[in-house]
């Protein structure tokens, strides 16, 4: 049995990391909820956000965490033409066509990352990133706490947008029944475009945080896509606060799994949990059962 302090620190780190995971998964979740699209390029958008953070720091000298809104806007601006030219023409062709298009986008982006930034792994070097933060017996990296706080704030903002604004109302209507929403005067096309942009912006912000906490490279996206999918399924499709809860639970259980079974089992625990929830609580573990 490992030392109690180590155990608590590991779990605390897992939970904090889970918050960041939740932000990265949120983009996938709302796109899946509104557009019924498994965005296979989600991981690459994350990596793009990380590169954006890196170059933002290099060119402006401003801390990328302060520049997160700018990164979010950049990614959203990148997403809108992508949606207009690639996804919208396929809107009435079933989910596979859009999914495969996003897969093609993902391999193109990976290839472009290698051509433009080389295959080296990088990280956004900040001197505070390595600092430990100690509270009683618990020690966690400071960057985890900062990332967690930013993620939770971002998720709460998105939750407010979705639940309390006119756009959010249209978004929820389009997710529930696009045809009915269109009949009632909702501009479903624009809603989907903005939702996609919002999703990509969330992925980008999450990516910049991941880039500050870990190393990343052109092909890092795949692993984050799977982790994000696990969080989405845990929290329930398109459920914003559920995604946050899903991220926290996944983070905690992954760190517990790593602690008790060995580090290699971290991701295995995540995937097993993912499939179990898919099998027994397909609307997320928070769902009260289906109507």
């Amino acid at each position, binding site marked *: 049995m490992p030392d109690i302090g180590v155990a608590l620190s590991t779990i605390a780190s897992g939970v904090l990391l889970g918050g960041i995971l939740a932000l990265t998964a949120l983009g996938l979740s709302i796109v899946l909820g509104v557009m019924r699209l498994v965005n296979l390029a989600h991981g690459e958008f994350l990596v793009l956000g990380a590169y954006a953070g890196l170059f933002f720091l290099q060119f402006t000298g401003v801390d990328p965490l302060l520049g997160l809104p700018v990164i979010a806007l950049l990614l959203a601006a990148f997403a809108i033409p992508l949606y207009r030219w690639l996804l919208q023409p396929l809107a009435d062709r079933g989910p596979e066509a859009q999914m495969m298009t996003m897969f093609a986008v993902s391999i193109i982006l990976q290839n472009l990352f290698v051509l433009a930034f080389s295959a080296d792994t990088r990280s956004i070097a900040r001197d505070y990133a390595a600092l430990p933060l100690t509270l009683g017996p618990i020690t966690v990296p400071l960057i985890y706490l900062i990332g967690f706080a930013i993620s939770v704030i971002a998720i709460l903002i998105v939750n407010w947008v979705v639940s309390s604004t006119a756009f959010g109302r249209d978004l929820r209507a389009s997710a529930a029944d696009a045809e009915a929403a269109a009949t009632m005067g909702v501009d479903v096309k624009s809603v989907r475009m903005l939702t996609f942009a919002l999703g990509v912006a969330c992925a980008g912000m999450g990516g910049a945080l991941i880039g500050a906490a870990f190393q990343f490279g052109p092909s890092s996206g795949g692993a984050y896509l799977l982790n994000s999918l696990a969080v989405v399924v845990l929290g329930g499709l398109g459920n914003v606060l559920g995604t946050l809860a899903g991220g926290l639970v996944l983070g905690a259980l992954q760190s517990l799994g790593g602690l008790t079974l060995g580090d290699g089992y971290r991701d295995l625990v995540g995937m097993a949990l993912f499939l179990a929830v*898919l099998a027994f609580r397909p609307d997320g573990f928070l769902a009260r059962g289906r109507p």
Partner: protein
Amino acid sequence: MIGKAAAGGVVETAVILIVAAALWFAPAFAGDYWLQIGFRALIYLSLAEGWNLMAGSAGLVSLGASCFVGLGAYVVFGLLNKLDMPPPLALALAAAAGGALAAFVSPALFRLRGLYFTVGTLALAELLRLTMINVSLFGGATGIFLAQDPPDLPALFHCALVVAFLASLAITFCARTRASVILRAVRDDEDAAAQMGVRPFRVKLAAFALASAISAMAGGVQAIKLGAIEPYGIFGLQWSIDVLSMAIIGGVGLRLGPLVGVIFVIALGELLADYPEAHVAIAGVILIVLIRFAPRGVVGLVAYQKLASRRPATA
């Protein structure tokens, strides 16, 4: 109608038999380069036929081909190394294992329709890969070597040919008999099909299990050719993605779709082999253009144009 379809089935079976018999003698004429390409095409053809059966006929869009390729590979290596079994028997057992895994996970994967199946197959492949990495019995991250010497290229080509032949026959059976009507009924409207006395779960399970058995067998042949397997490669997402893109490029749900898609993608890969740095990106752009402008794939494009030229007045 049924009589015509059955007659078509006889013709189709005859064509498959003749082509397979002709290809059997290919190693006598073709060089190693063409045998390598042919081997890869036959493996992918088997996988894509299975994928097409699931997606085109039963509406199950899978991203889990790698799961069954990897399973087949590990089962075959285990049986050959530990029990010294003859390879054909090992491959048959791998197919059984593939079907059994599909049956075991289907209650979870079929629980919700549509995208969840896709996401679930993706996760299943990842789960199996992580299991192989972590359990030392399965060789861990370094994988396993085949104890015996792998057979020579012509023998491997024949193996792949047999698998592709069996796959094509099975798909013909599904497409030309009453089974095809039932499959399509489930794809188009599960609830209506259930009302008519079809049991959607069983039908979907049959398609999923058959495709998985084929994939596992193909994975076993591929593993014997490699001589050594490791979880990152054999369970790699690349398998699932390749198969999906081949089937979509060829034309989902069309009988010739997988064959045309496989030839198209492999030929493209060979043509772009001289530009390794941009190879993947170019393939991606072609994929986007095809999805956008050829909704029913290359086969659909050709067939539609034929139809349009035959009846210009109605087009």
